[in-house]
């Protein structure tokens, strides 16, 4: 039985990093969007700041997730052609990441211009939440978390 408090156990676990790291962009993006919707509703600058920094961290945290996901594919499955749930997971994960970066970019550009953020960003954020939820749902099936029984 491996010791869960042994750093080597955690770091060298067979492709476990991806299923651990994925929780960071999911949580940060959903929190960022929640703050942004709240900021839009209340016009509170502090909430908008909180939204921005959550979205920055969400975008940054997609990078190790993408790398660990590609490593899991290349090392554990030896890069074989994906199909079915695995392929859908990869496609939706890529779309989710692009959307998270797009949302960050819209916010970042708005801050640089010191103007009001475009309201269409709320629709992009909503699509992003849906994509993240779908990707996570498929990932949950792959890992066994979402399985029946």
């Amino acid at each position, binding site marked *: 039985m491996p010791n869960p408090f042994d750093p080597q156990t955690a770091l060298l676990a067979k492709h476990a990093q991806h299923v651990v790291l994925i929780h960071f962009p999911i949580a940060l993006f959903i929190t960022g969007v929640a703050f942004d919707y709240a900021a839009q509703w209340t016009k509170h600058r502090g909430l908008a700041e909180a939204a921005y920094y959550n979205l920055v961290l969400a975008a940054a945290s997609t990078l190790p997730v993408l790398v660990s996901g590609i490593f899991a594919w290349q090392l554990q499955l030896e890069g074989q052609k994906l199909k079915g*749930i695995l392929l859908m997971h990869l496609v939706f994960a890529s779309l989710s990441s692009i959307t998270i970066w797009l949302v960050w970019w819209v916010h970042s550009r708005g801050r640089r211009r010191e103007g009001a953020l475009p309201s269409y960003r709320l629709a992009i954020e909503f699509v992003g939440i849906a994509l993240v939820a779908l990707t996570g749902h498929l990932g949950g099936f*792959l890992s*066994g978390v979402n399985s029946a029984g």
Partner: protein
Amino acid sequence: MVVKAQQAPAASMEVKIDNFSFGPAAITVPVGTTVTWINRDDIPHTVVSDDKIFKSKVLDTDEKFSYTFSKPGTYPYFCSVHPKMTGKVVVQ
């Protein structure tokens, strides 16, 4: 009159993959047996021996993978998507 010796039919064995486990998880078979793994789960799985002697592609639902064991020994294997799924073939 010449009587041809009839060859014994090659033995075969099936291991079912379902609910994130191999069933039966451990089997003992004679040399020459072909073991077929069939994925009855709705999740993709693989069958990979610990020492990479045999290795399946990703098996979707109802897909099969077969390997014929020509040498005696113990062959532990696992699913590379879910490394906690393990099994063992003992060839005698």
